[in-house]
């Protein structure tokens, strides 16, 4: 008799979602996490006294809508802002605004406006096809079984339904770079770079890198499945974690926080439970890890517990990511040139034209600090005054591309880069510096330390073609079931990957239930 049917490692969104679905199927489930709060990368933190921010994930745009309803997250306390538009800030204040399928701005001509809506339409067509794959386990191609055959048939049908010309377009686009596609569709450089930013967020790639159309499609597919627009979570992202946790508990899941897992334990040749840092042993029929594959296999299970070929695959799994976060506490609402207060609460991005994005990327490849960065800014305290003292505000920005370990070391680089980043934003918000009362830079290395994501990779591993779909995380451990008996994956390192989709968690639960390991 085991202590639990399933132990889920990690109370991030995927872990909680997976646990909830398992519990709804009447299984006895424990979720365990080393952090004192639920949510994982969906977390809110006080970075300066009385100033709170979403310290990791920033926007909610891809959470699958069936999960939201299945888990009754609204009842569990999840409150979202209204959908945000995206404003790409321009040095000449001729800002470009994206709202759904429309784009506006003084520099955008009608041709680009039309092109934008047809581009969005085309991407959604492809997203629909991809959604077929995202909604279940990724099919195996050679080993024949009916579930996978049906998925492949559905996929084939979806492709055929696209029609010959769109299918040809997809064949061409799937592996290429966003840089070329932008140049094919649009003329306006600000328009191009704003879209390109979405294709490279959370990655180590520049717009010229092949594979960036896929990463863009990944985002669009998530948005298609979520159908919510880009929103801010009231109370910060941590509120999503809290809502998921209370929904899970309502479903009967037991959640232990502040308890670090020391190891995934095996009895004989199958995983049989976990050992906590304090030495406690907890047994279960299966262990489901929502930690990233590297943490799961290398740190928790240990390569010695796997066959060498699989250990090699795990070791070669790539987690490079150039995303950092900058938080600024402000004593008043800053002024952004050319923006009114309503616009300030939207998603604000700053990016040079695409060639400049490439230039901004280059230093990261050599562990150097770039002169220029890309920003995805939120001032959440406008919609949500609970985050800062009255009249004060917090600004939080995703920043690209920041190296994991700069040659000069973070001790020296941290302040240097923080100052530089504030200067870069100040070019668009002249009073920012004078209003700043505190700031904090969270580097990829910090993310690794605080949120246990290897390499600081938000997506739990690069979303490169050889690490997605039926290859995620690596051959031999796909379809949520790993090469080690009794060990499952339900995090973003499993198909379909990161971006607060929630799908790895849900799909994993469904596979586990169907696979019969808990019967």
């Amino acid at each position, binding site marked *: 008799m085991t202590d639990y049917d399933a132990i889920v490692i990690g109370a991030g969104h995927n872990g909680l979602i997976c646990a909830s679905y398992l519990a709804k199927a009447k299984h006895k489930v424990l979720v365990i996490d080393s952090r004192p709060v639920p949510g994982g990368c969906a977390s809110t933190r006080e970075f300066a006294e009385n100033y709170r921010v979403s310290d990791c994930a920033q926007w909610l745009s891809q959470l699958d809508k069936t999960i939201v309803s299945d888990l009754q997250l609204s009842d569990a306390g999840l409150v979202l802002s209204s959908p945000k538009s995206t404003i790409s800030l321009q040095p000449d204040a001729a800002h470009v605004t994206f709202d759904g399928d429309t784009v506006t701005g003084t520099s955008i001509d009608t041709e680009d406006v039309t092109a934008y809506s047809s581009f969005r339409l085309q991407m959604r067509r492809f997203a629909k096809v991809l959604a077929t794959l995202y909604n279940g386990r990724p099919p195996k191609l050679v080993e024949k079984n009916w579930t996978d055959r049906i998925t492949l048939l559905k996929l084939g049908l979806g492709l055929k339904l696209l029609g010959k010309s769109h299918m040809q377009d997809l*064949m*061409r686009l799937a*592996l*290429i770079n966003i840089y070329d596609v932008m140049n094919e569709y649009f003329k306006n450089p600000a328009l191009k770079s704003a879209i390109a930013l979405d294709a490279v967020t959370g990655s180590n790639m520049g717009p010229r890198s*092949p594979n960036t159309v896929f990463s863009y499609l990944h985002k669009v597919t998530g948005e298609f499945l979520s159908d919510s627009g880009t929103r801010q979570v009231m109370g910060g992202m941590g509120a999503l974690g809290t809502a998921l946790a209370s929904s899970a508990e309502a479903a009967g899941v037991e959640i232990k926080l502040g308890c670090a897992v020391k190891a995934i334990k095996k009895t004989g040749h199958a995983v049989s439970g976990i050992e906590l840092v304090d030495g406690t042993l907890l047994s279960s029929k299966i262990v489901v890890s929502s930690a990233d594959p590297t943490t799961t296999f290398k740190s928790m299970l240990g390569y010695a517990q796997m066959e060498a070929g699989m250990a090699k695959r795990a070791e070669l799994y790539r987690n490079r990511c150039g995303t950092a976060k900058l938080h600024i506490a402000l004593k008043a609402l800053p002024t952004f040139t050319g923006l009114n207060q309503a616009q300030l609460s939207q998603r604000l991005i700053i990016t040079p034209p695409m060639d400049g994005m490439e230039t901004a990327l280059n230093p990261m490849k050599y562990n150097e600090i770039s002169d220029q960065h890309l920003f995805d800014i939120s001032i959440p305290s406008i919609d949500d005054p609970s985050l800062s003292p009255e009249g004060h505000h917090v600004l939080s920005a995703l920043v690209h591309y920041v190296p994991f370990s700069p040659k000069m070391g973070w001790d020296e680089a941290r302040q240097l880069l923080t100052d530089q980043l504030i200067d870069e934003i100040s070019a668009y918000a002249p009073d920012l510096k004078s209003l700043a009362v505190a700031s904090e830079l969270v580097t990829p290395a910090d993310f690794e330390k605080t949120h246990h994501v290897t390499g600081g990779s938000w997506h739990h591993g690069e979303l*490169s073609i050889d690490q997605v779909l039926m290859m995620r995380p690596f051959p031999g451990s796909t379809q949520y079931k790993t090469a080690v008996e009794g060990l499952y994956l339900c995090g973003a390192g499993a198909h379909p990957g990161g971006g607060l989709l929630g799908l790895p968690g849900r799909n994993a639960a469904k596979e586990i239930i169907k696979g019969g390991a808990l019967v």
Partner: protein
Amino acid sequence: MNQYDAIVIGAGHNGLTNGAYLAKAGLRVAVLERNPYIGGATVSRELHKGWYYSNCSYVSSLLRPEITRDLELPRHGLQVVPFGGGATFMRNGDHFGSYSDHDRHYREIARHSKRDANAYDRYAADTSLQTKLIRPYLMRTPPDPTSLKPRDLRDLMEFAQSFMSLGEEKLLDTIKFWTASVGDYLNEYFETDVIKAHMAGSGIIGTALGVYSPGTAYVLLHHYMGDVDGNVGAWGFARGGMGAIANALSKAFQSFGGDIICDANVDKIIVRNGRAVGVALKDGTEYRAPIVVSNLDPKRTFLDITNPKDLPADVVKKAENFKIRGSSGKLNIALDGLPVFNGLDPRNRLMAGDLHFSDSLERQERAYDDWKAGTWSKDPYLDMMIPSLTDPTMAPPGKHMMSVFVQYAPPKVEGREWTDEDKDGFEKSVIDQISNYSPNFKDLILHCETRTPREIEAEVGLTEGNIFMGELTFDQLLFNRPFPGYAQYRSPIKGMYMCSSGTHPGGGVMAAPGANAAREILRDLKRPNTVPGGYADD
């Protein structure tokens, strides 16, 4: 009388091959060439008295042996001599040599890392697996995945079967290989930077991507899938320079009664009632034929010599969107004697191979950064050869001819056209790099021909000077080359065909596109096929 059964535009190796197979089938064929000499980018020219330059393509491996044999190219004077090996000279004064002898190669790698030397066998096996997958499709027309025709369905099934037979894991590894960056791919085998850099070169030659760009592992494969006398991956020199290939092909073509017409600069393909009926030259001359085959790259074919009103709008758009990027340049140098690199004895066989100076992936990637920024690489990746060490016809006795392929050079310099000063700067960055490893090099230079993308485009007619007539990225390979829906050598205009390296299986002096296109044309004409099938490769 300017009436023919078929007209081929461009006397490069693919045009000549295409013409040869059409003529062999009994068609009256003319190959039209803009320049006063034939060969296109497969050419040898005496640009300095006594020295012959293979001044575009410079080595041979991919030329399909089926074609060499079928067209009796050896009888027509072609001799391909393998060179085997090569070296990367390192900043620390050492070098990494690549030997064609397996054991010797092992010992040389082991000098740098025993683990890498051992891993090389695994690397060679895995890479051969990939070449074995692709080689059977070089001499075949790619199936159209959007088509429901029995022939396409059957070929597609067969194609899928050959991949499925690998089993789940090897199939996924194959997908990885086809999509990964050459840097990441090599990281799975090797720990030593110079070894990785030496091998990564094949992943970026002729390509507007860096060693860390996804898709470059395939480019490496593209350079490995040829053979010399059955030694897959081996490269050789055509005796007399690359022009010898074009010359032999032209003789084969002429032996079947074909006409080669030089100084014939095609202005437009003439289309009547939706059918190609001939071509008009810039000087007003017209040639008539019910079959017109373009050996120009897809951009020139559809945007330059075809009237847009004769084309469906989507094809014009596709041609505009076709990726064909200038990324390389070339120096051809006449030398008074043999230079010494890093103190390596000039009698060492390595000297006759491909020589490089980029000893780390980072240097190669930084060279690409320069290209992205719109300028030539300040520390370029060079693929340097001294063919006169193998072929005595290239330079006077005791003197040498050096061919230096340079990666990267942009099609335009910071958005503007190349100037002569730019060209000098480009040349200097190459000469300086070589001199860093060879103190006597500069003194030996008697003549240097420098070719930036500007010169290559102007002379050879390769758009942006792209050597493959289109990037070798997956969106432009197999059934996507040049564009989805048009990968079977037929243009949207009846009677008009494509046979250039811009079609499957792509560039590299293979002659396969020319042969494959001929097979499709003969099929449409309901004539017996004259094109040989591929050799079984087991």
